[in-house]
């Protein structure tokens, strides 16, 4: 019956059958793809006049970054087969998950599936500890950062040295914090070495909200302008978050209708129930908070990332920055607060920013 068939039509394009229910509306997958592509149109425009804009897409093999990769690839294939200009091209970087998380599941099959699915693509796979090769100065920085109690044994392999450094950090919050700082640096350095001008991060709206809240809670409020907002990072590489309009739940729906993603994506580990709050990392606490509250108030949570995105980047120009994370040392221009002065005992090294000082191995809390 025609009436019945009408019910199955995507409310947006009125053409395809609907596959997803996004914010109470029945839509086809093109809607989600469109939300992402509209954020990339500027790169398309750049590439029309000159050389293609090179983007780097770090893929964790999780749901969000894999969906972003799928959308970018579909867009690319569509344009190529229709003979339309693409304007940009992208490289894929996989930092081996097993070298990041101790409990990492084997990912070789997922990586093979990824290569099989995108045969024409420039895909690189590197371990976390290759940061010592990509950012050679990081060895000295880490030694300085970790303090006198940590002794770096240069006779050890890079893998062992990174493991020893990470093990010297006492709390889950500091460990997660420093890990994400190091991962960001590795991605940035890879981007620079491979000629990419921008990094496309696969953070969903939910994740960005959690990142914003966690960043604030860790004293990194000033860095939200590139850690959550689209904009220029301190290393001269642009950071973009094209999934910022999509909730994690919506990306999960998209993944479920794309058969080719099922072999690539490593499913999220369900959050363990029996963890005391004090043993969580701040990042994890915030992810859980956004998930719980997001079930009831998705719009309010989405609004957190949007609010952070409205902040102006700091105009401190040539002000000294943190040796580790490149955030501003001291206060943002115009902030006359005395939080830093009040923490005089923390200020014995002026090389690191407020947020990094909090995550130092010697810091007790």
């Amino acid at each position, binding site marked *: 019956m025609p009436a019945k068939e009408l019910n199955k039509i995507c409310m947006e394009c009125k053409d395809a059958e609907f596959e997803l229910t996004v914010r109470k509306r029945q839509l086809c997958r093109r809607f989600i793809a469109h939300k992402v592509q509209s954020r990339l*149109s500027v790169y398309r425009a750049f590439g029309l006049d000159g050389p293609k804009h090179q983007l780097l897409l770090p893929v964790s093999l999780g749901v969000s970054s894999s969906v972003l990769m799928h959308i970018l690839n579909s867009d690319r294939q569509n344009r190529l087969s229709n003979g339309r200009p693409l304007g940009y091209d992208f490289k894929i970087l996989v930092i081996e998950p097993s070298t990041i998380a101790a409990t990492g599941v084997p990912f070789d099959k997922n990586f093979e599936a990824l290569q099989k699915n995108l045969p024409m693509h420039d895909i690189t796979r590197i371990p976390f500890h290759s940061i010592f090769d990509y950012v050679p100065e990081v060895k000295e920085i880490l030694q300085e950062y970790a303090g006198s109690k940590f002794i770096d044994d240069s006779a050890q392999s890079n893998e062992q040295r990174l493991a020893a450094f990470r093990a010297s950090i006492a709390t889950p919050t500091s460990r997660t914090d420093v890990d994400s700082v190091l991962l960001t640096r590795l991605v940035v350095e890879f981007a620079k070495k491979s000629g990419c001008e921008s990094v496309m991060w696969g953070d969903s709206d939910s994740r960005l909200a959690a990142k914003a809240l966690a960043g*604030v809670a*860790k*004293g990194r409020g000033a860095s939200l302008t590139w850690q959550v907002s689209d904009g220029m990072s301190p290393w001269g590489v642009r950071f973009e978050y094209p999934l910022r309009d999509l909730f994690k739940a919506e990306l999960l729906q998209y993944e479920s209708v794309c058969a080719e993603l099922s072999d690539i994506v490593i499913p999220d580990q369900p959050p363990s129930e029996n963890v005391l709050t004090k043993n969580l*990392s701040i990042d994890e606490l915030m992810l859980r908070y956004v998930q719980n509250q997001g079930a009831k108030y998705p719009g309010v949570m989405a609004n957190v990332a949007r*609010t952070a995105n409205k902040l102006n980047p700091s105009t401190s120009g040539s002000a000294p920055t943190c040796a580790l994370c490149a955030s501003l040392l001291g206060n943002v221009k115009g902030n006359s607060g005395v939080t830093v002065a*009040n923490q005089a005992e923390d200020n014995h090294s002026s090389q690191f920013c407020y947020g990094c000082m909090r995550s130092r191995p010697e810091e007790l809390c």
Partner: protein
Amino acid sequence: MAPTACFNCKEARAVIIRPKNRHKLCRACFINIFETEVHETIIGTNLFFPGERVAIGASGGKDSTVLAAVLKTLNERYNYGLDLCLLSIDEGIRGYRDDSLETVKRNAVQYEMPLDILGYSELYGWTMDQVVEQVGKKGNCTYCGVFRRQALDRGAARLGIKHVVTGHNADDVAETVMMNLLRGDLPRLSRGTSIVTSSDASDIKRSKPLKYAYEKEIVLYAHHRQLDYFTTECIYSPEAFRGSARTLIKDLEKIRPSSILDIVKSGEDMAALVPVEVRGAGKSKQLAEEESAGGCGSQNGRTSGGEMAAMEAQLAENEEAESLETEIKLHNGSRVKANRGPTGKAVKAQTIKHCERCNYISSQRICKACTLLDGLNRNRPKTAIEVGVGMEDEESSSTLMRQMERAQLSAT
């Protein structure tokens, strides 16, 4: 186990683990360090000038009692030359305020400071108990917060004092930062953390010298100096965003004790990054009535969820409207900016005016207190639309003016 020596003096026995950084300290060192940190805050921000008359907003609770005790101590120790007095507001909450006011009266004697008490019933014609009877328990914090802020200013004006200090602590400030982030309230995010809140149009300067002091340390300080304060929580519940932020901060403190201070630091930095056009009434200026409502220091985390649900509905509506919009491309370059800018929400510029009813400073024609009073006097709760409600109805809100006139008469 042998007793641990104090981290600071290395001699006396440590009896306190500092909540802020887990240092183990003896009683004397803790008290000294706590006072010195408040002193550093005061000096670092040039909070006072010699000979300044300062009113301490005193509730009889731990925060304001500690503030009074510390200010008295520091004033004498470092010769600030301040003329200190206590100013109390009687909200009219039976069983909560009656006893705490007795405490304030004792404090006045203990600290040898003059005390002035100003009541809601005297000012507005309504006690909080009567307000709650009328509007119910939901949203009553808004009334209390708005009324109290005006009351403190009016009380100070009555005493001819231009600087009111309040006992807001680091936990309160951190809570406000998180709350404003959750509410997406950039103008308040740009002002909520500054130690001094004043405006060109108002004579009264407000400040919070305990802004960097942890609530837990305030309790410890009060305990170890055996201060006479009143322990109770407001019997009415906070609004949902504050409640949610409060729960979050308590969890964060368990994970990393420094995080309260870290949030304050983030809040200060972010305040400086809020675009100028969104900041409202000028850089680091604030309308006193605008200060986050509901921050009365009540420590319960109960939430009604009403405000969050209302905002959720509003956001969903906006999104639906947005999906019906047709995007018009001007030229390709302009798209980046469009993505970064505020999402279609017009930025409200605030201008400082005076309330047409009571002459109190306000960003609207009618100040918040008078608008709320309108609702109360009309025998119904506050309406959701704040601007322009019932402004024509001049009759209903003359209560405030009458009460103010009476208060001024009695002062002269």
